[in-house]
């Protein structure tokens, strides 16, 4: 702050513009870039640089988005998507953490389960949705399974790798205090792995959201994914983009929330 003061030279009171610049700081450029892109979008649509029924002006999208705030289909759809994403995310995360730690610590389990996991891992989740319909139907079971699967891998991989990097001294410390195996896992390995787990969990949030939407597009009766397709067929690109916008805001908010929680709950992250 003092540096800015010096740069402003003789003026003892910083100008209003200066104070805004300081508050926004380096974010200013990011905000400006987004504003410029949106402006280009608006102009390109209004002046007919891009002619397509699926390229409405931004203001029209914003208007559609605002008009939905009073309780439109988008919010209802978003709630349905979030409910699925959250359920699948919870299941996938718990399994990913549990298996990541168990496999990280048990050679027997590693030999038994790792090949299977490695084979399933590269399969893109959307590709398994159609054949899974036979077993899981087209409803929530299918979607939540797909979301869990998509969530599982980053969480598992990060946890598994995190367990491997837990320092041996920490484990030996627990051993010298005659701590049981289960207690060592729960009280030492798990918290020591938490920063790695958190990284996996954060990656998984966006994946869970994406797979929720994709699964709704393939086999949806509700949710944002279904809404997007429905609006395309209903020739309402403004509502479609408005839904995309709500989705983007949700994704951004979830990520921010995650970072805040991370700082709160894992203050030792990056400190060991």
């Amino acid at each position, binding site marked *: 702050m003092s540096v800015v003061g010096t740069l402003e030279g003789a003026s003892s009171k910083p100008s209003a513009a200066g104070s805004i610049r300081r508050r926004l700081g380096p974010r200013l450029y990011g905000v400006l870039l987004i504003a410029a892109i949106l402006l280009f979008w608006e102009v390109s649509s209004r002046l007919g640089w891009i002619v397509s*029924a699926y390229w409405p002006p931004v203001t029209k999208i914003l208007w559609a988005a605002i008009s939905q705030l009073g309780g439109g289909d988008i919010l209802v759809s978003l709630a349905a998507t979030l409910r699925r994403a959250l359920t699948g995310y919870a299941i996938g995360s718990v399994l990913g953490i549990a298996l990541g730690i168990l496999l990280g610590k048990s050679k027997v389990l590693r030999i038994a389960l790792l090949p299977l996991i490695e084979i399933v891992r590269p399969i893109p989740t959307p590709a398994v949705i159609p054949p899974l*319909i*036979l077993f*899981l139907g*087209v409803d929530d079971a299918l979607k939540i399974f797909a979301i869990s699967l998509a969530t599982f891998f980053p969480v598992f991989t990060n946890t598994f790798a995190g367990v491997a990097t837990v320092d041996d001294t920490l484990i030996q410390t627990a051993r010298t205090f005659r701590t049981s195996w289960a207690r060592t896992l729960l009280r030492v390995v798990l918290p020591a792995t938490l920063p790695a787990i958190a990284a996996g969990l954060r990656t998984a949030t966006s994946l869970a959201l994406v797979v929720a939407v994709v699964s709704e597009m393939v086999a949806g009766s509700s949710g944002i994914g*279904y809404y997007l397709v429905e609006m395309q067929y209903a020739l309402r690109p403004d509502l479609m983009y408005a839904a995309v916008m709500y989705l983007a805001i949700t994704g951004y908010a979830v990520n921010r929330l995650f970072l805040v929680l991370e700082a709160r709950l894992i203050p030792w992250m990056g400190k060991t």
Partner: protein
Amino acid sequence: MFVVARGIVCALLIVCSVPCRAAEPATLRVSVIPTSVLAPLYAGIKYGYFKEEGLNIDLAPTAGGAIGIPGLVGGSYDIAFSNNVSALSAVAQGIDVQLLAPFPEGAADETAVIARKGEGIKTGRDLAGKTVAVNTNRNVIWLYVREWIRKTGGDPAQVTFREVAFPQMIDALKQKQIDAAFQINVFVIAAGKDPALEIVSFPYREVQPKVQPSQFLATRKFIEGNKDKVARFLKALKRGNEWFDAHIGKDELFSLVAEFTKLPEAVVREMKFQPVAKKVDADELEKTRDLMKREGLLKADVDVKKMIYAE
């Protein structure tokens, strides 16, 4: 992707019998897609015809028809909206589905090949070396556009087919990623208004004017276990059909369609509505089957008559 998926689904079906989800009494779960031809069903719901038969219709809208049959087999749906090609493939692969009821006629007048104006694409012959968009490879749209190309002097082997979702076809066309597209009613209307585009042809008219692309279907297993419910469904649907036929060109129908498709009513008013077909037509289905055989879409022969449900 879905063709492969269907193959897997069918293979699995033969190996293991899948338990059907027990439907609640008097409730039928019907898969639907947002298309205007479903108007009779929606009319039946709106005017209480199903309720009067003691049926509760649980609509399961999906974005595309591709999951109709897998969903039916998996027990997610009791009755599905599906197209003739998917139904024939399913039967050929050992899935015992029955066509329950037909839809409004007039598919031939609504589904068109569109292209950029002024590039001289008029027939299949003009498409040699060009790219044509279809919604799904090796399915109904693909099958008929190939036959249309053949009938109008072209060779489908010289045409590249690309999968593009219906709503994206017009943009793809204008950006010259494709040269023509086989498109459904809503977008045919939009293309007709676009100064850069033109309607080339209505392929069904030239290939098979009375084609019945869509039907309601159910598995034989379900039908046999729920004879009474199916009969009541068909009875109520018939009343829906009658309502539909009686309201063609009337405001009630336009607003009904606008309601469930979420389309602007102005667009709906431009659609062409024709009466519901009297029955699932075996002859038309045989024509479709023969086309499929020729394109190698059927691995086994199908007795079309046995596919059609008779009360």
